[in-house]
């Protein structure tokens, strides 16, 4: 599909136009805080693309932390209204890949999750390629790229006051159909490649997976989990984590069945009504998270559920670095299948 160049003014006009038709979400500086977060905007002026990544990923725009599944009044229940059309502007390739993973998980695997699907169908993803990685970025190590297009409709690369626009889907191409079509220099394309060069080398995730396949009972987990405090920061900030809890809330005959994010790091997560808990120990919960990222989802949907955004590294209150965890596991777990 034809690449085009959009000037800053051109993009500003587009944003204003989109905002008239539906919701536009883009990174915005979070008040006095030193970070950006996705917020609804009506003009390009409000946005701030200066950070590599937003504090929280864009996953909440498709899978909100609190979502109404059913609303009820006087014993009658009804489904919530369909979500509105939305454009997510400035999503980084890692986060877009994460949503693509979630889409595979939520819409495949037998049943389709209608709430996620409804939002997905009404969302346009306009990505921003990364020109400079953060210290904690490692998308290239887990199969991504700072200019990756997975999950996107359109990818923008900042080429100094102008944006190189690369359509990924027809929907994306249509967005910029009216833009001029100047020749693209190779030089400009190389920006993103240069970014990729600064990133860590690929992890042999297939080898790690083979090790994890037989490494469930390995003593390495006893040491790895010690520093972990079993909070849910990593899982809630992770763009691929998808677990949820369902609860009913009711007052005076009115209420809703809602779902809220849940975390496998919480003790209560796996506890049976009888009180029996299959993952009673902190060690087993930590192991479950790592296993899920690098093995379980590979078995389930054929891919890792880590996109290398680095949020868990930045925010871990115990200073745990998943890259280090992976390195330790690869080093210590034997590759040959061992008998339990």
């Amino acid at each position, binding site marked *: 599909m034809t690449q085009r160049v959009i000037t800053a003014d051109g993009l500003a006009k587009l944003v204003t136009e989109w905002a008239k038709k539906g919701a536009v979400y883009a990174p915005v500086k979070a008040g006095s805080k030193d970070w950006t977060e996705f917020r609804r905007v009506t003009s390009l002026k409000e946005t701030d693309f200066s950070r590599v990544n937003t504090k929280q990923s864009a996953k909440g725009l498709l899978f909100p932390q609190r979502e109404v599944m059913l609303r009820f009044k006087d014993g009658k229940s009804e489904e919530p209204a369909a979500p509105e059309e939305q454009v997510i502007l400035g999503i980084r390739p890692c986060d877009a890949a994460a949503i693509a993973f979630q889409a595979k998980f939520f819409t495949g695997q037998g049943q389709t999750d209608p709430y996620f699907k409804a939002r997905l169908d009404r969302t346009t993803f306009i990505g921003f390629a990364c020109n400079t990685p953060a210290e904690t970025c490692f998308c290239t190590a887990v199969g991504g790229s700072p200019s990756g297009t997975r999950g996107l409709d359109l990818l923008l690369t900042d080429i100094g006051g102008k944006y190189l626009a690369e359509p990924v889907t027809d929907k994306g191409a249509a967005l910029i159909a009216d833009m001029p079509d100047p020749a693209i220099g190779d030089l400009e394309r190389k920006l993103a490649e240069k970014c990729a060069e600064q990133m860590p080398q690929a992890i042999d995730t297939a080898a790690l997976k083979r090790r994890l396949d037989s490494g469930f009972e390995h003593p390495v987990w006893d040491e790895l989990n010690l520093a972990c405090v079993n*909070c849910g920061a990593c899982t809630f*900030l992770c763009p691929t984590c998808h677990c949820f809890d369902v609860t009913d809330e009711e007052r005076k005959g009115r209420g809703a069945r809602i779902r809220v994010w849940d975390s496998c790091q919480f003790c209560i997560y796996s506890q049976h009504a009888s009180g029996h808990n299959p993952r009673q120990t902190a060690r087993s919960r930590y192991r479950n998270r790592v296993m899920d990222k690098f093995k379980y989802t590979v078995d389930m949907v054929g891919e890792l559920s880590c996109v290398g955004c680095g949020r868990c590294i930045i925010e871990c209150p115990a*200073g745990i670095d998943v890259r280090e965890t992976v390195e330790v596991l690869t080093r210590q777990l034997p590759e040959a299948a061992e008998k339990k």
Partner: protein
Amino acid sequence: MSREEALRKRARELLESKQVVMVVGHRAASTKGKAQPAFIAKPEDAESLIFDETCGQNLAGHLLKVKHLGKIAVVTKGCDSRSILVLLKEKQLDRAQLHILGVGCEGVKEDGKLSDSCITCEYPNPIVCDEMLGEPAPGDRLQTLNPKPQTGELTSDERWRELSEDVSRCIRCYACRQVCPNCYCPVCFVDASQPALVGKTTELSDNMVFHIMRALHMAGRCVECGSCARACPMGIDLMKFNRKAAQIVKERFNVVAGVKEDDAPALTVFDPNDKQEFIR
């Protein structure tokens, strides 16, 4: 000898002589400016111990995870020692099974900035320890920087709005609770499910109830180490609540958590003459 050098040397000795089975301390995390709790069981690993301005995690809580192993040595700043005292009083730790390695603390930094709790800290040196490593920190160093927590002359509505802004950012990851050395309930009130007590949503009402209740549960027990505020991924100053609770306890009951070895946690006891001006 710097505190860090003294620490490594002593840790190695203690492990080599088998006086302790483990030294709990800090090691450098992979990202700049962060440390990670370290659980050192082999003498040769003592070299990875660090002690500097990045070592903000309160290690007292981590002791609960490893106390079953045997006698543990623990690197202890002023705040860690206060938490240990609270845990000892609450019968969560056995003093005989602890070897407390005291270190003077010049304050810990977060993103290069002195942590708020360290600005107001009055106890940079351990209250209780078996030995001091290196020089104690100057006790009066922080007095000059001591801006008391601002309460201001705000109206109820203004205070509600200000706290609401903070609290509405909460994503209920419970990092604050999990890093807290003195939060160790097997089932936290927010996790209670039969029946469920606190709503699991991030609505303001649920978030506010969670944070007020947590402050209440910490009243008379919180040692103001600031771990919760530093742990919060959403940058909520959780110490606003805890500092207030500590201030209430001090003003009303004249108790400061974890600074005396022989007093009881403020809310487990009473004085028949406690002020009751708020009761009709």
